[in-house]
């Protein structure tokens, strides 16, 4: 261990380390650091977060009175007092994104709600110090100002919080993300999402504590009321869902849906997906579709999806949809995917060098192809100019 310490002592500091040391040293005279545009602030925040150097001192770099949007990507070391300063130094904030904000206290959140008069969009990851009572007061205060609410990774956002959110802010909510919230344990609490949320455009309900909390019936009742305004739906990890919500929920109600993510839904089958997409005239076409680890799907489902959405698809993820065979890739020889820019076909073992080659032709705009774990893709593949293939065993970094 001594040797290790010694080695560390004599290691030449990286340029980033040197910059960060100096930034911390001069943080109290921010003016000396020169002008940085707001565009760069986000990059600086990212660089500091990556180096785990965003802390109570360096966070002050981002507090400007005319700032409208603030993204702090790693708040692990930013104390509650520093976070509270956002409420006093940045009165014009409209959108706030705090990642890994485990130090955020209830009183600070409430301070935001009262002091930040323009705040309408909030995204918090890992805010586990904030309890039901505080959430309730927060929602009552911010009320119909709230347009985007995005919360992930906390067990303290409970059933009452969800009910309070929808009662107080449901009318104005445009985007709602509830992900990995282990405090939502009452299936009846979820029912409130079925009430009228007139403006809801984006809904993410992902990775519930138990798969049985999110049922087909629940999703159908939510979509029956709110499906017509939705453009984006994410139900990743709700593995209790089967074909029924596709056929009786999405198909009849989601007319303007463009983005759909259904990762880890291992119960949905070819039959269900075909029934959803076959002659689905209500919906013009999906632009983003994520079916990673939908392991019960195969060629028939994928062909039906292309028949419906080929002209619109921009990103497609079929990672680990193992059953896809060469038959599907053969279909792609006749169907052009003009807009497709990104395809993740990792662990789809029927992918091979010749598939890569003709994908380049049938998808003229494809710029990123991921083939991790597809071991028939080798260095011999002929790759069109402008297309980046990553994940082959032969690709070294």
């Amino acid at each position: 261990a001594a040797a290790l310490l010694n080695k560390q002592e004599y290691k030449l500091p990286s340029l980033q380390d040197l910059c960060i040391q100096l930034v911390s040293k001069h943080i109290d005279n921010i003016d000396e650091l020169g002008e940085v545009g707001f565009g760069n602030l986000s990059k600086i925040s990212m660089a500091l977060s990556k180096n785990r150097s965003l802390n109570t001192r360096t966070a002050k770099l981002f507090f400007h009175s005319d700032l409208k949007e603030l993204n702090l990507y790693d708040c692990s070391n930013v104390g509650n007092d520093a976070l509270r300063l956002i409420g006093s130094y940045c009165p014009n904030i409209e959108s706030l994104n705090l990642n890994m904000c485990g130090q955020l206290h209830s009183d600070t959140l409430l301070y935001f709600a009262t002091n930040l008069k323009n705040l309408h969009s909030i995204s918090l990851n890992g805010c586990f110090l904030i309890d039901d009572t505080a959430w309730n007061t927060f929602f009552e205060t911010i009320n119909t100002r709230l347009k985007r609410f995005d919360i992930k990774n906390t067990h303290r956002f409970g059933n009452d919080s969800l009910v309070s959110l929808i009662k107080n802010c449901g009318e104005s909510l445009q985007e709602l993300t509830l992900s990995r919230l282990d405090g939502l344990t009452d299936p009846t609490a979820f029912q409130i999402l079925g009430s009228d949320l007139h403006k809801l455009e984006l809904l993410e309900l992902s990775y519930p504590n138990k798969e049985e909390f999110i049922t087909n019936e629940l999703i159908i009742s939510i979509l029956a009321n709110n499906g017509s305004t939705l453009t984006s739906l994410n139900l990743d990890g709700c593995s209790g869902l089967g074909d029924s919500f596709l056929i009786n929920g999405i198909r009849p109600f989601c007319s303007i849906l463009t983005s759909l993510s259904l990762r880890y839904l291992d119960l949905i089958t070819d039959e269900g997906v075909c029934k959803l997409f076959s002659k689905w005239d209500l919906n013009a076409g999906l632009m983003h579709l994520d079916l990673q680890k939908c392991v019960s799907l195969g060629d028939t489902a994928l062909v039906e999806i292309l028949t419906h959405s080929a002209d619109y698809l921009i990103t497609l993820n079929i990672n680990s949809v193992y059953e896809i065979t060469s038959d599907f890739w053969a279909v792609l020889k006749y169907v052009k995917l003009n807009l497709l820019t990104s395809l993740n076909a990792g662990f789809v073992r029927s992918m091979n060098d010749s598939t890569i080659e003709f994908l380049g032709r049938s998808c003229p705009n494809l710029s990123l192809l991921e083939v991790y774990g597809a071991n028939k893709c080798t260095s011999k593949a002929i790759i069109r100019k402008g297309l980046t293939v990553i994940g082959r065993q032969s690709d070294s970094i």
Partner: protein
Amino acid sequence: NDDERVILVSSDCHEFIIAKKAASISPTLKAMLDSSFQESKSNQIQLPDIDSQLMDVIVEYMYYNLKYKDDPSKAPKFDIPIEMLLEVLVAADYLNI
């Protein structure tokens, strides 16, 4: 080959001709030079987000690192102009140095 050179082109079109060994301090540049990318053939890398003033500091650091990485105890202090700190940080993050 120790004498190999590469050209880094800044946003304001200044060309910095430096030793390939120094440029390879940055994993980002190294990857561009080693792989099948166009840059490896032309030995010229366009860096449209970095202006010449900033490039001065970057190039200086790459040579500083090249010279002292094997014997850091002899390294003198490396100076960065305070008013450029944040810009240097963003560029250093991109170049991963």
